[in-house]
């Protein structure tokens, strides 16, 4: 029973983080049709910036229990680099996908050294501030309250995102633009502005998830390139462009990883790739994606 809850909580925690990054990927792919390899770099940027922000805040006399809001705020703040990146990507919207993918690959390379320049090659961590919130008992196991809070935060963000896309006027226009760019432009939608907003939102989702994860795992230079593969796995399993797909994919990848790590560590990532390949063979569009032409 303990093992079951361990895997469940560990898997869901990982899924919560992955979902945020994958949601950012989906949003950008859905509207701009760009697969952003740099999503992992945003995640790492959020993590590094979060460490620095919390250390600075604690140094400035902010009480320790307030570190979670500080992290969230820092994640949102650093995500505001989005418009600058989008301005660069704008140069290739009308070009072949290969160029778009390569441009985001260039961003991966550049961010790698930007992170190294500001934070050095050594991993950065927050020590055990996350233990400040204590532990709660879930079923038979003691879980750090912080992890539960992150899961809760991710659920709140997911619901908020869903409401934003489904219920608000802006969300409706956004979905219409994703559906048919020319038509919405003809109907007077400012597509450029829309793209900037969407890309920034995607960036913020990435940086916030990085900031949220950093109390439990050190920020390191391996983060960007490792996470991007997992995020890819999530969106491919769930279906490119689908938000519900991102949720389903994140849960599958998160739980699968937790299972594999516990029972057969060699299989950790291998299991995920096998599922990705199986899904692409059986359902090329992903579990919840729209069929591809």
């Amino acid at each position: 029973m303990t093992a079951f809850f361990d895997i469940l909580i560990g898997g869901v925690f990982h899924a919560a983080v992955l979902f945020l990054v994958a949601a950012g990927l989906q949003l950008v792919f859905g509207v701009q049709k760009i697969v952003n390899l740099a999503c992992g770099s945003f995640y790492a940027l959020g993590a590094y910036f979060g460490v620095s922000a919390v250390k600075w805040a604690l140094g400035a006399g902010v009480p320790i229990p307030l570190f979670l809001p500080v992290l969230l705020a820092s994640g949102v703040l650093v995500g505001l680099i989005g418009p600058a990146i989008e301005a660069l990507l704008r140069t290739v919207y009308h070009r072949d996908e290969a160029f778009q993918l390569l441009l985001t690959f260039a961003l991966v390379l550049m961010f790698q050294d930007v992170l190294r320049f500001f934070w050095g090659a050594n991993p950065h961590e927050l020590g055990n501030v996350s233990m400040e919130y204590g532990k709660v008992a879930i079923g038979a196991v003691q879980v750090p309250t912080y992890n539960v809070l992150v899961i809760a935060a991710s659920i709140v963000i997911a619901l908020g995102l869903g409401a934003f896309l489904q219920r608000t006027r802006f969300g409706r226009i956004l979905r219409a633009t994703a559906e048919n760019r020319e038509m919405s432009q003809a109907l007077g939608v400012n597509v450029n502005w829309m793209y900037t907003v969407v890309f920034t939102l995607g960036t913020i989702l990435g940086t916030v998830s990085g900031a949220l994860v950093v109390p439990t795992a050190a920020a390191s230079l391996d983060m960007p390139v490792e996470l991007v593969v997992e995020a890819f796995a999530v969106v491919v399993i769930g279906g490119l462009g689908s938000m519900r797909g991102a949720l389903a994919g994140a849960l599958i990848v998160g739980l699968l990883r937790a299972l594999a790590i516990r029972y057969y560590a060699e299989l950790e990532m291998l299991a995920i790739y096998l599922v990705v390949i199986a899904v692409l063979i059986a359902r090329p569009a992903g579990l919840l994606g729209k069929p591809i032409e």
Partner: protein
Amino acid sequence: MRLAFAIFAFVALAAVPKLASPYYVTLVLPAIAYAIALLGFNLLFGYTGLLSFGHALFVAIGAYGAAVLSSKLGLKSFEMILLISGLAAVAAAIPVGLLSVRYVRIFFGILTLAFGMLFHSFLFKFYNLTGGDTGIRVLRPTLLGMDFKELDKTAFLIGPFYYYCLALLVVLGLAMWRIVHSPFGLHLAAARENPRKAEYLGVRVRLFRLIAFLISAFYCAVGGVILGINTGQADPELAYWTHSGELVFMTVLGGFANFFGPLIGAFSFIFLKSELMGVTQYWRFFLGVTLVLIVVLFPRGLAGIGEDAWSRAARKARRS
């Protein structure tokens, strides 16, 4: 003009060990390896229009093939190593290709990326078989049965091995030239430009894409064998997705629309990287900047810049 370029490049490369310091010769060797790999890669990317983000998989198969054959099975013949590793890559490419060529564009890219990473995590995690993150040593092979015992490692690499690889590049380059100018190559281009129309006209699009995939896997494996022998080590980083990204980078840097583009790309990338690494520890940043400039301003790559300069000069010459 193309022939002149090819002959000039060959003469220059043949002269490198005589003129340049050993350090630069050891740089040219991986560039030759990448040039061979990219000849195959560009058959798939430039001519067939399929962008793979997982071809490092086949480079890794080549390097690991050389490692396993030379240090575990005691096979020393370079020719046999090339043949067996190349065929192993083709064998692996059959299932991967069959599954991947059902898709085009971004899905093809993601699927190949997943296969590449599958192999990477296999190499990384199954320590007993693959040596994990340290990999397997690649021992010095014999060339045409000669073992060159009297030469030390560097002398061997920049001497006989260098010329052997250069000859390989020429032979494989000529073979690729034949392939892309054959009816098969034209079928590929037709399928790239308009797959549906090509299908109507009787082009068996998927089969041809698969064959292009297999050929590209073979070329990448040959490149991988040379890389492995050059560094004396096969490690899992060779299969990592960023390495696949570098293959794409080199191809676009040189220009994928030109037959010689990938070759130019391989050489410029290796030298740019080594020069940048010598100047700054932040070389990745400047590589990224280069890639941005190429993608945004010169999508036809260095070969495109060269072509434009050539035709401008030719026009000026005609006018005067």
